[in-house]
């Protein structure tokens, strides 16, 4: 059987690797972006000079041959689902028995005047990165439209070369549609500490043409203020990259509709990663989750299904992580910016304003619902177990050291957390366990 995968991102490559592990089928992976799989999440580090492009490739070039995964660098212009055939930009045709669509996303553009000028671009692909690099020499200022994870990464990139940056966000503080108020405030402060000119509560009015088709300034809608700049980054979110599949009979809403076996409405065709939209997501989960981890899991699940071993997609307990300039962030379970009635939270912040722990629990029975940590590392497996087992909040607090994943010698803040909790609630909790690997492993096995 010939399995063709469009897209060599994390989801497509995970699907290919797992298909190879499970079967002897012929595997072809197509992408027009790069020859080899690279880590999209590491784009920023290339620009910042922490790594070279090769360093972002998780596998050495020989890996693909050794595992008999054929790589094709070409663009798929059209998919003929009836004849199971792809038309390539180069003119070739590639036929398939089963097809996995792992097309990823594209940066949003909301019809702003000037959005298609030169020096205006999102940050998603390797080409976007090259474009950014090409226009960075002598750049006097960059304006970034939209906060979010990619926006702040882009700001960090420019700052690494001492290029002044302005970020325009509609919200009143950074990423406050996802982060709870205190964390959002913390990051907002941190952005200012890094001398980034964050403008809150503003929208992009238009991007000004310098007369040669290049951007030279932006105008803020609310105030009419003009900000001179040589580069405009559009980072107001991403959406599934599915335009070329419209009108092929494939069912597309925002993304490609899939059931919980990741099958589309076309027989033998699957969709995974950023471009897939789950028709009936698990409770508490969103239909499109454009993140690395879900792409990786979907790739694996799709491989099982393609190989005839039926497995339903179950992403498990939500987790994610990011780094805002110098502050690391991890989340496990449900931590919402606008929590429902029954969510209560206990929040502790370090006096230096760069570290925080938030526990979310159910007001009714005090079971733990989520963790948000800023500037401190928690242990995924431990948090997951607490969440799965619906552990009581106070039990979690007493054992909190088990979750600490900071490097050795770091000051541990669990005691401060417990003290704060006791003070506020009148409880008398004590830390019961130490941060020791043996204890953790025992706990995980129990």
């Amino acid at each position, binding site marked *: 059987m010939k399995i063709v995968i469009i897209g060599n991102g994390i989801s497509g490559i995970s699907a290919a690797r797992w298909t190879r592990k499970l079967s002897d089928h012929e595997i072809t992976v197509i992408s027009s972006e790069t020859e080899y799989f690279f880590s999209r999440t590491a784009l920023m580090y290339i620009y910042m000079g922490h790594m070279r*492009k090769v360093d972002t490739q998780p596998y050495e070039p*020989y890996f693909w041959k050794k595992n008999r995964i054929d790589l094709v660098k070409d663009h798929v212009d059209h998919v003929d689902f009836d004849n199971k055939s792809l038309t390539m930009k180069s003119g070739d045709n590639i036929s398939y028995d089963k097809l996995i669509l792992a097309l990823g996303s594209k940066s949003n553009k909301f019809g702003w005047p000037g959005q298609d000028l030169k020096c205006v671009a999102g940050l998603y692909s390797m080409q976007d990165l090259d474009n950014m690099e090409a226009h960075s020499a002598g750049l006097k200022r960059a304006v970034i439209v939209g906060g979010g994870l990619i926006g702040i990464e882009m700001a960090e990139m420019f700052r690494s070369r001492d290029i002044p940056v302005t970020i325009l966000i509609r919200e009143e503080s950074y990423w406050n549609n996802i982060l709870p108020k205190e964390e959002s405030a913390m990051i907002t402060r941190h952005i200012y500490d890094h001398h980034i000119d964050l403008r809150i509560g503003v929208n992009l009015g238009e991007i000004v043409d310098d007369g040669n088709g290049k951007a030279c300034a932006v105008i803020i809608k609310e105030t009419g203020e003009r900000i001179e700049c040589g580069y405009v980054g559009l980072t107001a979110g991403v959406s599934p990259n599915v335009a070329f599949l419209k009108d092929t009979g494939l069912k597309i809403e925002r993304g490609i509709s899939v059931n919980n076996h990741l099958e589309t409405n076309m027989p033998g065709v699957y969709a995974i990663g950023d471009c897939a939209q789950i028709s009936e997501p698990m409770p508490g989960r969103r239909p499109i989750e454009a993140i690395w981890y879900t792409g990786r899991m979907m790739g694996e699940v799709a491989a099982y299904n393609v190989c005839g071993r039926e497995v339903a997609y179950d992403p498990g307990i939500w987790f994610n992580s990011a780094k805002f300039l*110098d502050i690391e962030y991890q989340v496990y379970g449900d931590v919402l910016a606008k929590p429902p009635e029954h969510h209560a939270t206990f929040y502790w912040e370090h006096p230096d304003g760069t570290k925080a722990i938030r526990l979310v629990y159910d007001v009714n029975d005090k079971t733990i619902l989520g963790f948000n940590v800023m500037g401190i590392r928690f242990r995924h497996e431990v948090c997951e177990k607490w969440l799965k087992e619906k552990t009581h909040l106070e039990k979690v607090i007493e054992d909190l050291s088990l979750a600490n994943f900071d490097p050795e010698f770091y000051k541990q803040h669990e005691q401060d957390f417990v003290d704060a909790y006791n003070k506020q609630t009148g409880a008398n909790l004590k830390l019961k366990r130490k941060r020791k690997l043996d204890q953790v492993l025992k706990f995980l096995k129990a």
Partner: protein
Amino acid sequence: MNNIQKIGIGLFLLSLIIFTAVLGLNSYTLSSDGLSHITNDVHRNAIIEEAEKTGALDKKYSNNIAFIGDFKSILNNTQASLESSYKSNPPADVSEWDYKMGDWVMKDYTINTLKATGDGPVSNNPLLFLFLTFGLGIIGGLLFILPKFRALPGIKNDNIYHSALTRGLTFTPRVGILMATIIGVLIYGFKYMNGAIFWPLVTAIVAGLITLLVFLHEKKKETGPPRSASVPITGWIGFFAGFYLIGFYILLYWMPEYITNWTTIVDPVSHMLSGNDASQWFLYGLMYTVIVIVMGIRMMSKYRHNKYQRVRTASVMFFQTCIAFLLPEILTRLNYPYYDFKNIWPLNYTFFFDWNINNLIESGGLGIFMLVWGIALIVLGVPIITYFYGKRWYCSWVCGCGGLAETMGDPFRQLSDKSIRAWKYERYIIHGVLVFAVIMTAMVLYHFFTGSTRVLFLDSNNIRQWYGFLIGSAFAGVIGTGFYPLMGNRTWCRFGCPLAGYLGLVQKFKSRFRITTNGGQCISCGNCSTHCEMGIDVRHYAQRGQDIVRSSCVGCGVCAAVCPRGVLRLENGSTDIGERAEEVRNVHIEDLINAK
């Protein structure tokens, strides 16, 4: 970079230029006064006679190169004439060995004569030049480094791949330089062994065999060139820095007579500490210590937010300054043997040499203690401490080579090759060196106890001379440090150090130490692999949720520090190490299916 930092760099470069120039700043006049340090009357008079004959006596040389040339031929002629006059007319009152002039004393005579006859700004103002070189270098370095403490704490790797100092070389020139160095070492080694081809030849054959094994294993068609080499970048400042370092080591190990002016400027420090004139080894020790301290401060500024890094850096600074540098000098002053308490065989390959053992035995209680301490470290210290904490307790907390790598070498850590091919080379070479060290030491001990130098066709003096040359000097020094800007800061530790090989075996097979990965949080970004100085592809494990148990890991903790998602943690624990290091440990689907 602000202005203060620019001034710092300027001062540092100035100090480097002066340091280099110092070598040519003296003139030399070969007077009989200048030879008075030679206490052997026969030798001294013969040399003076020979010098007079050739017209070199009281002649003024404007630089050391010409002087050394003439003086060496004077010594050679003297040696020959003493040899023949001993034959024709053996003196009654002087023993043969006092009469004839051995190669070894000739080296000493050359160096000491240079120091005694040198005249000029350097010899007249050693303190001034100490300030202009070491002093300015330190001030310049600190001016560059201290302002960094003002930056916001956080990962500071910006632009390392944009800098011509730290971005390394492409594959071809890098391999070219490496090959040239190896060939150069072998040719020089031929000369070093007085024209005996045996050992250089054996070395060349072993190198060829290893390469053959590596490539056979790769089954060629599957493997491309090593990954870390395929991007065209040229770090020309790094190239010159490497060149300078390599040159420095060649002079230090094999041509110390050319650097007597350097030892002259550190004489005042040596007098203060041990009371003796400075040898090239004192110079090296002092430079080493100063560099570890200054660059250690840099490391602290870089990882201000990371207490593991701060404590660890303080530790290597302490061990280098107090245990490796000051303590042995003080012991010498007190007439005890020169002894570095933290240097362990087989890194300290001379530990079992007869002169060392004899020296320790003859030095009373303390000497015996040193002998017992050294052996206890080998048979108890290494396995026990490594069992509990991994080899990091030594390699990145205590060791001097490790100390230099973690301080001066830190800007170059990303240049280590992460390819599977490099890993294969690593395993063959490091274990090969370990075996070599064991055989060499066994023969030396056999010699010590039995008095016989021969086992089969091998000669214990010969093998130890070659080991000292090839591993002790060429590998550990010239390649080990000279290649920092070319192949990363742990080239020696990774490919060569026999002690690291020994520690690594313990770590791999019997230790509680591992790097744990944090569930599914890895985004495969590659920061951890890139900044691993030992060339471990950390990401390979992390993205599978696998714990990392690798013999080469020195536990520097930088992977955990640079990981932007908090995925890695260095940990010690008594349980589950094998299970958690299994491949694909964290895959949820297998769990699901197995559970059904």
